[in-house]
């Protein structure tokens, strides 16, 4: 088990190295001179552009700049936002809670809808329920989140007046965004639960359990579902990435604070340090969550540890 953990964590290092490299080279891969872009909104003479370049150390050799970037990041210094002039780490700190809240709440919505829906569809295979729920799931997978979000606002905020359309803060404001994001993720989870459940239900040990005379529901929940959920756990980690991507849109539609809006704002304002810092943070979080999922996976399925 320890070796497994050790190996998982060691594997993270090259990934994170790749992330820093990708994030750093962003500045150079995007066409155009970063300094000129940053100053684009001001009246500037060519002299001022050169001054700014020196201040940002952009006149140094690239390797030295990269070393500075990684060194600072390791110390938790992600630089200063050009637009707001505050530390990027402060800005991330202000927004990470809201996004985590949204991600967890929508994950809960996704599981609460997706697992029972997939389970029922598998048990009632080839029935109208199966067909109906899978069509709904297909619609969910194909539905753009900004569109679903606007529909939610029109229905539940404008017409029914149940929930506020915008803002962060209390749970009341969390309902519409998390249901929007969760419904889309639930579609994938429902489809996966269904196929995984169908596979497990055909296994010998399920038949054996039934043959032993165990209650049908007991077999489904204790034998089949437990095993069927293993691939679903894996998809959690991957879905988390989707949730972060979805948060970029959902946070904008619902005007919620969060990392998604931070990145969008940074991109629109050409705020390179902010975008680099936030992307680095999100990528690292994504990698770490997948490591945790891998570890959880090993706990649920002993074959992983020894395999």
């Amino acid at each position, binding site marked *: 088990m320890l070796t497994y953990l050790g190996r998982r964590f060691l594997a993270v290092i090259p990934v994170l190295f790749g992330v820093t490299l990708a994030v750093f080279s962003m500045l150079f891969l*995007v*066409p*155009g*001179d*970063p300094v*000129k*872009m940053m*100053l*684009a*909104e*001001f*009246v*500037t*003479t*060519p002299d*001022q*552009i050169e001054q700014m370049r020196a201040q940002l150390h952009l006149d140094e050799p690239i390797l030295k700049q990269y070393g500075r970037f990684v060194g600072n990041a390791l110390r938790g210094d992600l630089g200063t936002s050009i*637009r*707001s*002039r*505050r530390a990027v780490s*402060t*800005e991330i700190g*202000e*927004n990470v809670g*809201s996004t985590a809240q949204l991600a967890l709440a929508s994950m809960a919505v996704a599981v609460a809808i997706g697992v029972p829906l997939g389970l029922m569809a598998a048990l009632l295979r080839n029935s109208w329920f199966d067909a109906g729920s899978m069509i709904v799931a297909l619609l969910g997978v194909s539905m753009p989140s*900004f569109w679903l979000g*606007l529909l939610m*606002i*029109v229905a539940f*905020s*404008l017409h029914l*007046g149940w929930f*506020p*359309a*915008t*803002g*962060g*803060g209390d749970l009341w404001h969390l309902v519409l965004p998390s249901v929007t994001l969760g419904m889309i993720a639930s579609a994938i989870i429902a489809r996966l639960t269904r196929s995984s459940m169908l596979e497990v239900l055909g296994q010998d040990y399920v038949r054996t359990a039934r043959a032993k005379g165990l209650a049908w529901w007991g077999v489904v929940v204790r034998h089949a579902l437990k095993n069927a959920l293993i691939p679903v756990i894996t998809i959690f980690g991957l879905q988390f990435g989707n949730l972060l991507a979805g948060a970029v849109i959902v*946070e*904008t*539609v*619902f*005007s*919620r*604070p*969060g990392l998604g*809006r*931070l990145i*969008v*704002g940074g991109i629109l*304002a*050409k705020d390179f340090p902010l975008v680099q810092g936030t992307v680095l943070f999100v990528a690292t979080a994504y990698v770490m969550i997948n490591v945790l999922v891998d570890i959880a996976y090993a706990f649920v399925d002993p074959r992983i540890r020894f395999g």
Partner: protein
Amino acid sequence: MRPGHRSRSAALALAALVSFTAAGVFAPDALAQSGGTLVIGLDQEPPTLDPHASPSAVTYQIIGSVTENLLYRGSDGKLAPWLAESWQSARDGRSVTFKLRRDVKFHDGTPFNAEAVKLNFDRIVDPKFKAGGARAAFATYAGSKVLDEYTLQVNFETPFSPFLNLAASGPLSIVSPKAVRESGDQVHTRPVGTGPFMVTEYVAKDHTTMVRNPAYTRKAPWSDRTGPAHLDTIVWKFVPEAGTRVTTLESGETQAIYAIPAQSLPRLEQNTGLRIEKIPWPGAPRIWLLNTTKPPLDDVRVRRAINYAVDKDALLATVAKGIALKAFAPLTAVMLDDPALRQAYPFDQAKAAALLAESGWQPGAGGIRTKAGQRLEILLNAIDYGGGPEPAVQLIQSSLRDVGIDVKLKTQARPPWYEDNYRCATHGPVMFLRSIDPDGLFSLFHSSFVGGNFNWSCVKNAKLDQLLEQGRREFDPAKRRAIYLSIEKLALEEALTVPLLDDLSVWAYRANVQGAKYNFNAYPVLSDVTIRR
């Protein structure tokens, strides 16, 4: 000053334009209800609320009633006393002396005096501070001198008349020096001014709250009454998604919103529970800067032909319905309006064709003109916002095709768009510029700004340079107007640009919200606002 290039299109007849005077009709004080909370939805979050650091209009939209300026410039364009009771420019034009009010305190209790103003101005030029839009006002600043506690002399290396208008603009508004010194990072979220409202809360990506300043006993220059603001509280919500923003106004979650999307405007205007107000922007209109150095635009006849050929009425009717007026010159009409400018380039395809023929471009295959085997192609630099270039640019393309010019769009992300403008690599971009003083034209046309922001016509013209420099030396309003009129006439004669649309700043209110006024910058001042219940 701030450039822009965001596309705003809309729908509605121009007749519905509500001028500020009409919008300013409000109940006498006896009927006006004091108190209440006004929630306003904005399209952006400000980068900072520090007026000296911000490069962005949204900052000044929010703090228009929080911080005050030495002078006030109202919608009539006239300068009025504000924190300064009077002002006098020196005969050599190199200094302005302000007599300040003696009864003013900042929200934090710090007394307002000449020393405080000096600290504000010195802060803006401090290289360690990195000022935003404010920095340009002090390009030739030579320090301020405190003559006595309430008299300040502001000095310049060379005469600089735009300073008076700039002193009345948001970036030069005055904040508490004590707060600047002591509040650290909070300086960006809690500006401490002297105005009728005080910022009390800032939640990033969500909202900022301001409350009435009970100690405001003066008469604000836009108001006809003395004393504190009517409203208790104003909440500015940052709602970037336009559809969401409109919905919050309709559902009552907000009572006012800014930046109305084109497709929603007709619906909102039909809603009797709402009211639309449209304010003209000062500065340069939405304008195509023609790169005068790149053939075939190095030929003035081709540039003039383009000016005759662009169908602005079609532009207005399709992409800017209800949210813009026709533009005629490099300054918006509210800055300088003159019949000579309006008559310069009527829509006239025959004249355009004649000019092109005269410069040797003859009709060729596929309706595109040719000269010496070369097709008449123009490369327009356009920004892709994810949904392609802005619609105005596509309309130009079809307008010019009618006279035999093939306009190719170089649609690209903002960074390379800027880069191409600096290098004069295309036939020019479409952009706009917000500026309270006609001196905004300096950065647009002075030769020293080629390769920087924003001389993207790449024009180096000694006569223009001289006139632009003369405009900075002249303090007499009538003479200044004459100078900038000749600059505009010269720019039109040389066809350095194609003026397209004068954008309007569009606000929507619940009908029971009354009394919003706007300064010359088109930013709202809200101390007279009431909400009828």
